[in-house]
């Protein structure tokens, strides 16, 4: 199960990676993995929300904490994996053994917590019927969707909208302007009001100290932008209040990720 989880950790595995995996595991596990990666999914044990319920009960986690956790980890399969502490000893469970335990809540719960967290997430996707990874057709196109951290530089309270920037050498380069839809938007606007450094019409410049996580569907080159790129489908996903601005990866890191 750990080898299979590692194989699919980065998304669709390349055929060479699959061949290397197949050489390491037995014929049974290799065949089971191939069926999964060709889109043949096991019968769903329960929907992800039910798996999460079972895990919440097993770990004595109250509903209000599950709700708080979902804001940080919206993926229910991942959340159900992270609620257990790390397993006390290394797991040797094979993929075939894991698939065989998808028969009842009791069998599922008996196994899931013994796996390391990343294997648990994959196991939960198999159990919840949301495993979608397939073997990559070679060659593959570039993967451009992703998430990045960015620093808040301007706020327009009338939108409300905000401008985000990335470090580049010793300066900050504007990356994108996005609507603010986070639940913490009122708190953010209050913070911006209390920290206005300068005004340009409706725009309030703020000290570059607040870090946000952005998600986007793609990146396209745009020579008219200082950053040289446009974010496609950009949106603000969280206020990363415990990340310091100096720890935001630079523009070059975002560009490197795309090539």
């Amino acid at each position, binding site marked *: 199960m750990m080898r299979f989880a590692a194989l699919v950790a980065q998304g669709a595995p390349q055929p060479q990676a699959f061949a290397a995996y197949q050489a390491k595991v037995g014929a049974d596990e290799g065949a089971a993995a191939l069926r999964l990666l060709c889109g043949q999914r096991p019968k769903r044990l329960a929907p992800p929300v039910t798996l999460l319920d079972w895990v919440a009960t097993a*770990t004595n*986690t*109250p509903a*209000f*904490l599950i709700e*708080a*956790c979902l804001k*940080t*980890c919206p*993926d229910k399969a*991942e*959340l159900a994996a*992270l*609620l*257990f*502490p*790390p397993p006390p000893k290394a797991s040797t469970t094979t993929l075939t053994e894991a698939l065989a335990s998808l028969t009842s809540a009791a069998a599922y719960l008996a196994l899931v917590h013994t796996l390391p*967290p990343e294997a648990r*997430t994959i196991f939960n996707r198999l159990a919840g019927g949301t495993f979608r990874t397939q073997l990559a057709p070679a060659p593959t196109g570039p993967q451009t969707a*992703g*998430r*990045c951290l960015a620093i808040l530089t301007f706020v327009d309270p009338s939108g409300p909208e905000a401008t985000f920037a990335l*470090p*580049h*050498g010793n300066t900050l380069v504007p990356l994108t302007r996005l609507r603010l839809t986070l639940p913490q938007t009122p708190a953010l606007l209050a913070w911006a009001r*209390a920290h206005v450094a300068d005004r340009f019409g409706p725009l309030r410049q703020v000290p570059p100290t607040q870090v946000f*996580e952005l998600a986007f569907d793609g990146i396209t080159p745009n020579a008219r932008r200082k950053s040289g790129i446009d974010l496609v489908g950009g949106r603000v996903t969280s206020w990363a*209040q*415990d*990340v*310091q601005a*100096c*720890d*935001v*990866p*630079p*523009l*070059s*890191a*975002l560009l490197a*990720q795309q090539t």
Partner: protein
Amino acid sequence: MTPAPLVIHTPKGLFCPDGDFHIDPMGRVPRALITHGHSDHAARGMGTYLCTHQALPVIRHRLGKMVAEGIAYGEARQIGGVRVSFHPAGHVPGSAQIRIERAGEVWVASGDYKTAPDALCEPFEPVRCHTFLTETTFGLPIFHWQPEVVVMRQIAAWWQANAARGVASVLLAYSFGKAQRLMAGLAGLGPICTHPVVEAVTEVLRRQGYTLPPTTALSGTPPPQGALVIATPNAMASDWALTLGPHQVAAASGWMALAARRKGVGAAFVLSDHADWAGLTAAVAATQAERVYTLHGFTHPFAAWLRAQGLSAQALS
């Protein structure tokens, strides 16, 4: 009548009215007590600074000219109407929780802390108090850290695999604390190089007597074969990164527990200088405090959880 609070939350940070001092203030104040040298706790512009002897050299290195005084762990000092002492927080070298006492009533401001020991800093010591102001950076039950040796073994394996392929291993870390914790935990496994910013802080800690392995600062020269390079994320933005030759980049942070945060780095290791969920709950229990205030990170869910356990708890931010 309930006595006036020993510590209040103000826009400039925590303030002790009876002692007329702030803790880790972010706006200019006359008198600052500093828990540790991270930039979100130790800022420029305060009239005077008080921190542990162990924290002071790095704070001076980072902030430059300042009026500052060191104090030993556990040493009590009267400031205005309160007695103050600093106690190990296990977060970074010199980091402290601040204990404040007035007529038998005790409050403790935790600063940043980590309950599990590491290879470098003074281990966390729980301090009994009536009111505990705790950080909650990782205050959700999805954060469970492995023992440090387990994570160091994972990092060592990644480093060795890269070295076998003739590729340098670049570990991203804060220049103070995490960087030195990594070198201390990985000492003796191969050549360790640093970005000059990391080296400067490392040298300050070495002069203080912290045991750190030999490191080589890279300034324009490529790392030796099979080296581990410890650098800040910012350093990787500069031309400096171009001199590294073929390399793999990894991040080491508590946030790496989340798949979304692992995207975009070559390898990710879950290693934090903050307490995890179990550490936070154990720390609160060990203080035997009847009232808890939460600061930083997941303040609201953690306070709600404490209330569900029967404690008086409230989020401050």
